[in-house]
C-alpha cells in the first residue's frame, strides 16, 4: 500500500499525571478511548497498547551490560502508550497527532515514520 505507517509514542510527565484529580483522569480515559475508537472506525488504526510503568534501561557501561530500573529517557518523562496508524500522508498523521486528547493534560507525542517492508512507487 502506498499508505505510510506512523508510530506515535505518547509521553507523559510523571508529576503532572500524579497531580491530576480523579475526574480529570476519568475524562482523559474516556477521550482517549473515543480517539482510539475513531481511528479504528476509519480503518487507520494498526495498533494501540498501554505500557506498564515499570521500564528497565539496558546499556553498556564500562564494558559491561548494566540493567537498571527506570526509563532510558529523563526520569520524569514516561512513555505511557503508543499508537500506530496507517495513513495516506504525513499531513494526516499530524492531524491525528494534534488531536490526541492527552495534549490537554500536559502530554506530548513523538511521531516516527515506520520503514516499509517493500519498495513503493514513492521510493522512485
Amino acid at each position: 500500500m502506498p499508505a505510510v505507517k506512523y508510530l506515535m509514542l505518547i509521553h507523559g510527565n510523571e508529576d503532572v499525571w500524579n497531580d491530576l484529580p480523579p475526574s480529570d483522569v476519568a475524562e482523559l480515559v474516556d477521550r482517549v478511548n473515543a480517539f482510539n475508537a475513531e481511528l479504528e472506525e476509519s480503518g487507520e488504526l494498526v495498533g494501540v497498547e498501554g505500557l506498564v510503568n515499570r521500564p528497565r534501561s539496558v546499556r553498556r557501561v564500562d564494558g559491561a551490560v548494566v540493567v537498571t530500573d527506570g526509563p532510558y529517557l529523563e526520569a520524569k518523562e514516561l512513555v505511557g502508550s503508543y499508537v500506530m496508524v496507517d495513513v495516506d500522508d504525513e499531513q494526516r498523521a499530524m492531524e491525528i497527532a494534534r488531536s490526541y486528547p492527552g495534549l490537554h493534560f500536559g502530554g506530548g507525542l513523538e511521531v516516527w515514520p515506520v520503514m516499509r517492508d517493500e519498495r513503493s512507487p514513492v521510493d522512485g
Partner: protein
Amino acid sequence: MTAEEPWVDLLRSLVAPVLGSLVRRYGDLTRCEDAVQEALLDAFRSWSKDGAPEHPLGWLRTVASRRYADQVRADSSRTGRELAAFAALPRDALVEPGPDAEQPHDDSLELLFMCCHPTLTASAQLALTLRAVGGLTTREIAAASHLPEKTVGQRISRAKQRLRDGGARFELPPDPDRGPRLQVVLHVLYLVFNEGYSASNGAELHRPDLTRRAVELVERLHARLPEDGEVAGLLALMLLSESRTAARVDQGGLLVPLAEQDRSRWDQAAIARATTVLTSALSAGRPGPYQVQAAIAAVHAEAPSVEATDWPQVLALYGILERMAPNPFVTLNRAVAVGMVHGPRAGLDLVDELESGALAGHHRLLAVRAHLLERAGDTGAAATAYQEAARLAGSVPEEAFLLERAASL
C-alpha cells in the same frame, strides 16, 4: 508460501465480472461486495477440497447471489413487505442460470470507476479496488500491506458506506467528469500493478497475478477507450516494466538496478506489444505523462546495453515530462540523465539545486547524489553518501541495496 493452485488466478479474475453483474442487478454495492467476498472465500474452501467446478463463473455467481439473498433476508431493517417478497421467492430464483459460455456484459470498468470514486481517500480506493476488482481477500490485502485484517476490513466497509451515502453511480462517468476520474483510475491501477512488484527478500510478496490483473484491466480500458492516449501510455509503461521482471531481482533477493540487469532476460514479446501500443498512441498527437514515461522506458528497452542507451533522448523526454507534470522526483531522474549526457558533475549541479527544495534530506536524492559521485570517481564521498541515504531509506530492500552499494566501494 505454497504454490497456488491453477484455478486461483481464474477465480480472482471472476470476482469483478460477478460483482459487476450483481451490482447492476441489485444496485447495492455494500451488500453485493460482501456477498461476493464471502462467495470467494467459499470457493477457496470448497475448490481446494473438491477441485474447481466445471463452470466456475456460474458457480461463483450462484453462490454470490445466494449469499446476497441471505444477507437481505437477515437484514431486519428491511420493511416487512420487502422481506415477505423475498421470502416468497424460491431460494434460487435470484440466481441467473446459464453456462459460462454466455459472456456477461463486462461491468468491471464501471466497478473500477466506482471503487476509485473521488469521495474516497487514496488508501480506501486502493483497498476497495484490490478486493472488489482485483479479487483479493481481505486477509491477502492485509498481509501485503502489513496491516491487521481488521483494519483493512474496516477501511473497506467505511469506503462502501461513503459510496452509498454519496450516491455514487454504477456507470462510466460522463464528460466532463470522465477525464479527471479516469486519471484517478489509472493511478490506482498503477498502484495495484506496483503492489505486485513489492518484492522483498524472499520474494514472498511478489504477486504476479496482481500485475497481470492490473495489466488486464488496463487492456480492457484500452479496448473500451481506444482513443485515450494516457490509457495506452499506462498500458505500455506496465508492459515495459513487466518485461524486466526476470532481471529485476538477483538470487539473493536484492534489487538489480536497470543499468546492471541482464537484458537477455527481458521479455521481448511484452516489449514488442508495448511499442505497438505506444507508437499508435503517440501518433495521435495527444501526449501525456504516462505516454512520456512509457517512451522513456521504451528507449531503455530498445537499448542492447546501458552504454548503447540513447541518453540524449532520455534526457529530452525527462525535460518534456517535467514541463508536463512538474515533480521533484522527475527532476531527480533528469539529473541522472544529465549525468549520462553532460557528465556526472553536471548531474550533481542539478542535484544541488534540488537540495534546497522539497527533496531536501530525502533518501532518493541522497542515493542519486551517491550514484553520481561514484560515476565521477569520488569513491570516498560516494560511500559516505550511500550510507547517509541508507540511514534515511524508506524501505528495507532500499536500505539493503544502498548499504551494499556503500560496502562495495
